[in-house]
């Protein structure tokens, strides 16, 4: 008996030790940073406590019975097997509790749906496997990919995720929103169904290809809020996080201006050294290509072709440019890539030791001739 007690104490201490060593985990739902998320949190706690009380009553009765009404204690079984009064009572009381729950729940459903009177709109498009954001009022438009450190770490087994800040919950370009403004989100998807979730905002919403869903938020507190895609969307479903940065209006305005300036800038097509091309090319590859063709360029048998030793990659340069810009029935067209990034990428995939290719050439941004006529 003493030994059992010691063991138990030891286990409890271990559990506590575990708790203090990694104090950053949470047990309960987060309250979030909007009025809506707080309303949902309160509703969650209300129902949780109702369940706890019912649980105590039911399990308490059961364990009292298990303890006292056992044969080994000489308890004789009674033979009753129905009692209409009791049965009516335990049908009506749960019904009343449910009605009590349904009232605040109904209010919350209606609140969730109040997308009217928003002051700005952001269109969110889910893609395999990143998010695309379009600010419908200001024209800001960008893609938001998993950050490079996480991208590399989860693909290379020797790298330790513990060394990456916000592993898998960080992006290269976060969604920036102002505080104190009602924002409407429009969700859609380009390929398969995705779902956009930031727990601090209090909800998730599915992004369905071919359809538009709506949701809204009003962030009270400046800060960085992280979430993930929550609808299985294929191989890299676990690797398309959402990061929202809420900032004061003036900071936000400055951000919009800076982002628009950068967006409208013509790409810098001046010559680069080979090393720069290769280094930048790796980033472009990690962002656009690695999900299918993999970090070692081997692709995935039966799904995505290998780049390693591929004729298409190491052969005629012009054809390769056309191939990347126009896409195929299986590969999306990468006409969005500006000439400088395309030159970096092509130099990289033809020469990267990581992909096992070594053609020994390079291409400068101003040598890219468009193979894709942009009619838009």
């Amino acid at each position: 008996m003493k030994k059992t007690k010691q063991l138990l104490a030891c286990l409890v201490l271990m559990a506590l030790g575990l708790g203090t060593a990694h104090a950053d985990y949470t047990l309960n739902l987060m309250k979030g940073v909007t009025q809506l998320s707080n309303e949902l949190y309160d509703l969650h706690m209300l129902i949780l406590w109702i369940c706890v009380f019912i649980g105590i009553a039911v399990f308490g009765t059961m364990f009292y019975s298990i303890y006292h009404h056992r044969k080994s204690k000489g308890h004789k079984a009674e033979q009753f097997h129905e009692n209409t009064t009791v049965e009516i009572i335990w049908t009506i009381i749960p019904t009343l509790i449910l009605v009590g729950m349904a009232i605040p729940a109904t209010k919350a459903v209606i609140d969730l749906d109040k997308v009217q009177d928003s002051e700005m709109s952001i269109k969110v498009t889910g893609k395999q496997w990143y998010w695309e954001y379009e600010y419908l009022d200001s024209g800001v438009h960008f893609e938001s990919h998993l950050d490079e450190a996480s991208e590399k770490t989860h693909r290379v087994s020797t790298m330790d995720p513990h060394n990456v800040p916000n592993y898998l919950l960080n992006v290269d370009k976060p969604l920036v929103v102002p505080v104190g403004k009602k924002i409407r989100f429009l969700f859609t998807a380009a390929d398969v169904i995705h779902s956009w979730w930031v727990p601090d905002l209090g909800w998730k919403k599915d992004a369905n290809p071919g359809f538009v869903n709506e949701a809204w938020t009003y962030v009270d507190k400046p800060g960085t809020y992280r979430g993930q895609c929550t609808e299985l969307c294929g191989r890299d479903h676990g690797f398309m996080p959402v990061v929202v940065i809420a900032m004061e209006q003036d900071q936000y305005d400055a951000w919009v201006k800076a982002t628009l300036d950068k967006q409208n800038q013509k790409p810098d097509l001046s010559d680069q050294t080979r090393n720069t091309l290769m280094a930048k090319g790796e980033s472009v590859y990690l962002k656009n290509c690695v999900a299918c063709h993999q970090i070692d360029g081997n692709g995935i048998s039966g799904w995505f072709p290998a780049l390693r030793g591929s004729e298409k990659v190491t052969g005629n340069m012009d054809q390769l440019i056309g191939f990347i810009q126009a896409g195929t029935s299986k590969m999306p067209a990468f006409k969005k890539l500006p000439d400088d990034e395309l030159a970096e990428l092509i130099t990289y995939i033809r020469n990267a030791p990581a992909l096992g290719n070594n053609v020994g050439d390079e291409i400068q941004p101003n040598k890219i001739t468009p193979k894709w006529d942009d009619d838009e």
Partner: protein
Amino acid sequence: MTAVVAEHDDHHDHHDHGPEKGVLRWIFTTNHKDIGTLYLVFGLIMFFVGGAMALVIRSELFEPGLQFVDPNFFNSMTTMHALVMVFGAVMPAFVGLANWMIPMMIGAPDMALPRMNNMSFWMLVAGVLLLASTLFMEGGAPSGGWTFYPPLVFQNGKSFPFAIFSVHLLGISSIMGAINVIATIFNMRAPGMTLMKMPLFVWTWLITAFLLIAIMPVFAGAVTMLLTDKFFDTSFFDAAGGGDPVLYQHIFWFFGHPEVYVMILPTFGVASTIIPVFARKPLFGYASMVYATGAIAFLSFIVWAHHMFTVGMPVAGELYFMYATMLIAIPTGVKVFNWTATMWKGSMTFETPMLFSIAFVVLFTMGGFTGLMMSVAPVDFQYHDTYFIVAHFHYTLVPASIFILMAAGYFWLPKWTGNMYNEKIGRLHFWLSAVSVNILFFPQHFLGLAGMPRRIPDYAIQFADWNMVSSIGAFIYGFSQLLFVYIVIDTIRGGTGEKVSDEVWEDASKHSLEWTVPSPAPYHTFSTPPARIPTEHF
């Protein structure tokens, strides 16, 4: 003609129509007990196959980072784990119990349609083998989730049509099994065995069989629409052709929600059969148990969209599906209260089947609580597609359906084999399972609330601790199930050596007919109807 008849009679005199010898007995058998055994053994094997897949998942999730498997294979594992457990393990195991026990419980000599019984078993094997073969195909097994949501499912490579054909076979097998159960119960009850005298296990299976007949064609229809969308240029689910991917989700969950009740209603039936025996009391509220089962079955058809609250529904839809879903708590509550009242003022003993049944009542209720929480549509906007959901449905399946299947095994093994199992090892199996299943699934509530989505092969650092705890629980739970295999084999081979009585458990014959026949149950039982029907409930 007369000669033939005479010869037949002659034949009858010398033989007791015992089982054939050798492997052909099992291939061609039409005996309900043999087919029941086939189903149960098949279910147990698939339980370990599906369990092995779960351990691949939990191994990968033991630590952050990708250590063992490619994300695509990980997705195949979550998909196949679900399909194998639902269609290969839990459903066949309950069909096995139905085959063994329904004729014996209603005093019938066999199932009503014995040849179809054989066919439905072998079609199940064909379906599962076809499904398993996709693991070796180019591009791997299906990896878009067991729900087969389009358009993701179309990216599934070579395995796609094979998985769908497998679903068709499994559906046909289930429908045939269900028809057989209904035909048996409606036509083969012994004189005096009125519907309201049937053991609850029979009642719950009767209702389950109707669910199956209603939903399997819907599922078959949904996946066939996927097939034509992919290969024959229809666009049911493609917006570009005027379709809608969400339409698939509506059809799927119209099947999917009753489908989960197909796994839980027979569970309720077995629990309602076991608890009175060990409480030495009649089941409390027999009639209300029957009505509650019917109510749950009815509600299961009108709540499907609570699986899709975040899909973008109008407010009226959200509200309707929220209210309807909340209603399920009422009949389910009635059941839990009835089981508690059955134990109340009984004279309880705690043999292994009772231990598993009590654990079922407690842990299933916990799964019911989280179910109530997520029925509240607005809060489900947080819970949906997180580990909170994973914890919820595993609580309603593992310590519920699986625990009750184990309980049924311990409860009826002595009747099936004529030998007593080893109670000590049985209890060890129970305590290991009951503790580890909570280590495995309880932390998943925390993970979900903290923000960890489902179906991801790798996760952020703040989820690391509870994932490790959960994985440790998974391995303890998984390996402790081998004890059950040991016990089954040991009991078949003689068990404790003690010969069990017809009744096996004290006064069990007051509760149900199977305890009035010898142990082990002879190859043919109730060739003549039973003289007396247990009427303890009245």
